[in-house]
């Protein structure tokens, strides 16, 4: 049995032990999301928030990217 809701030193998305805010995989997902935003902005002319919403809905989006996008949406609220 674990202590209730301990989040320190854990990835804020998947809760695996991590020295930084996000684990390596989710940090990479966030980096890629930011990198691809330029492409989406150019091709679809959408804003950051709509872009995040679009990629969370897209069935081709990778699981970690979806989780990272959902996290970024929550963070921006």
């Amino acid at each position, binding site marked *: 049995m674990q202590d*209730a809701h301990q989040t320190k030193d854990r990835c804020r998305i998947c809760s695996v032990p991590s020295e930084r805010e996000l684990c390596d995989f989710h940090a990479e997902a966030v980096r890629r999301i930011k990198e*691809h935003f330029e*492409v989406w902005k*150019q091709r679809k002319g959408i804003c950051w928030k709509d872009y995040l919403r679009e990629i969370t809905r897209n069935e081709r989006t*990778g699981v970690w990217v979806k989780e990272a996008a*959902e996290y970024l949406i929550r963070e921006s609220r």
Partner: protein
Amino acid sequence: MSYQLIICEKPSAAMRIAYALGGTHVRRERYKGLPVFWLEIEGKRVAVVPALGHLYGVEQNSTGWSFPIFDLRWAPLKDRRKRMWIEAIAEIAKGADSYVCACDFDVEGSLIGYTILRYACGGVDIKAKRMRFSTLTKEELRSAYKNALGRLDYERVYAGKVRHEVDWIFGVNTSRALMDAMGRAGGGFEVLSAGRVQSPTLYALCRREVEINLHVPDPFWSLNSEVVIKGAKYPAEYKVKEFFSRKEAEDVAERCQGKRGYVKDVLVKRKRIPPPPPFNLGDLQREAYRVFGYSPSKTQRIAERLYLSAAVSYPRTSSQKLPHSLGLGRIIEKLGRTERYREAARRILEKGIVKPREGRSTDPAHPAIHPTGTLPKRMSGEEGRIFDLIVRRFFATFGEDAILEEREAVVEVNERDSFKVRARDLVESGWTEYYRPYVAWRKTEGQRFEVNDEAIFVRVDVEDKFTAPPERYTASKLIAYMERQGLGTKSTRAEIIDNLYRRGYIEGREIKVTDLGFAVVGILKRFFPELVSVKMTSALEGDMVEIESGRRDQVEVVLKVVDTMKPVFERIIEKYEEIGEELFGVMNQLRRNELGPCPKCRSGHMRIVRSKKSGKRFIGCDNYPNFCNFSFPIPQRGKISRSNADCNFCGFPIIEVKDGWKIWRFCVNAGCPSNKR
């Protein structure tokens, strides 16, 4: 009176060999549970006895748990029946004056025969002869007995011995390190496994999974168009395949929709498609997966059953060769006696020269997989399917080249837009006639488009598309990857994939790596990078091939492995605590995740939490208190787990509580009508 002892690999093979050599005068008896077939060959008494695959294996020589460990010995396997059979064979061997190994003619078969002759029969391996055969047909077995090699094929034996010893050193030490480290960190006992071939394979799957999970799709647009030429519809491809602006694609679609264009140019190419080579094991596994959806291990099992019933040749081969000495004409003629293959056999034999197309791969021990001409009296549906696939592929190798005509027309419309229209026809069916229904190309008598034909654009739609992530491996693609990388052998690859499924490291037909698989690879990569390296494993496979061909010494290879791995394992001891803590954390995480994702916030996971105030347990979300306050009361006794079903009313997960023999199932949504009932 003394006799000759013939050792076989399996009971069914022993029976076939006994009846092939002894004709109808075979006496069958059981000695301590072991089937023994007594017969006479040219006045000499012969006892044919089977093994049950491997009767001996590698184990620790000393007692107690130690790490790292390199002290090993060959000993009887722990299975009670196998031990009884070893005793029985040992007693029968006492009365024998000559010995023959008639196990399958490959590395494992040679090793099985050697270990029995050496350890159970008191070191008589040096006196033994070796029968070499690729099919269990009467003629080949008689010839193999008559022309038996005067000694065991020690090169193959040593290659097999080294493989087992090296795999044991890798497997036992890494698994012990993982489990011991976990135990010391207070994580209890968990069965964790890692292996010389298994780990690099799992690592390759993880790398692909990472790319899929990190894929960000980029939008683009393309045209989905159709034209009608001479009354026939064809898909048309615009000169620009990908548009990076929807507006541009829409402009083209608007310009071309419903318009009439004309065929400006037609390019006709004729391609000769040679017959496919005969099957080796990898090809058969891939084709059976494509055609029937059978997993590689299932195909291998079925092919081995067909081999044991003498219907096909030895399946564990990498050869794509069919030497003439196999009596190919006779095999075709025998197959042609059945209604099903009569027509194909007649057409091949009518040509006069029976020469198959062969592939490049070779195998020193066996030819490509081929039918023997013997039809088993009974076959299951699956056996029948694989048998038919092997027979038709065998026939196809004798066929002529097929000729495909590919026509590509350039259609212009509006003087500025051009599309490509492609059509393909089978002009000469050649070998495809023999390989139906496993090849889809057919001859069509459709009209052909010509220059200046009118083309009407009946559909020009804009399609929203996104870049796709890399494809997942299927078992068949994974086998091909392992072949390319030199991971494992033709006989072990399917088993290694099965093992990854059994351990819960991968799941699904399109292979997905589980959290446990990721966790194990993460730790291996960090602490045992040598173990996930394809380079080291394929180099070792190369060493074993060299042992098999007599160019390398077995002891030298084992010592090289010990020298490489000893410092790695010693380094691990220094990092025991670190490994243990990481494993403990990961396993805890996995256990927490067993209840599944939080139905409220979706990004967190449900976990069992104990209230600090009341001390009572409940289900909460691990995102609390940051962005989720999901909670659900649960009984204070019993083991909580997630059931496979979701609630029929609200779609929330169903949780199962087991307390002794009582099981409750309930939905984790407090407001769900199913809970009110």
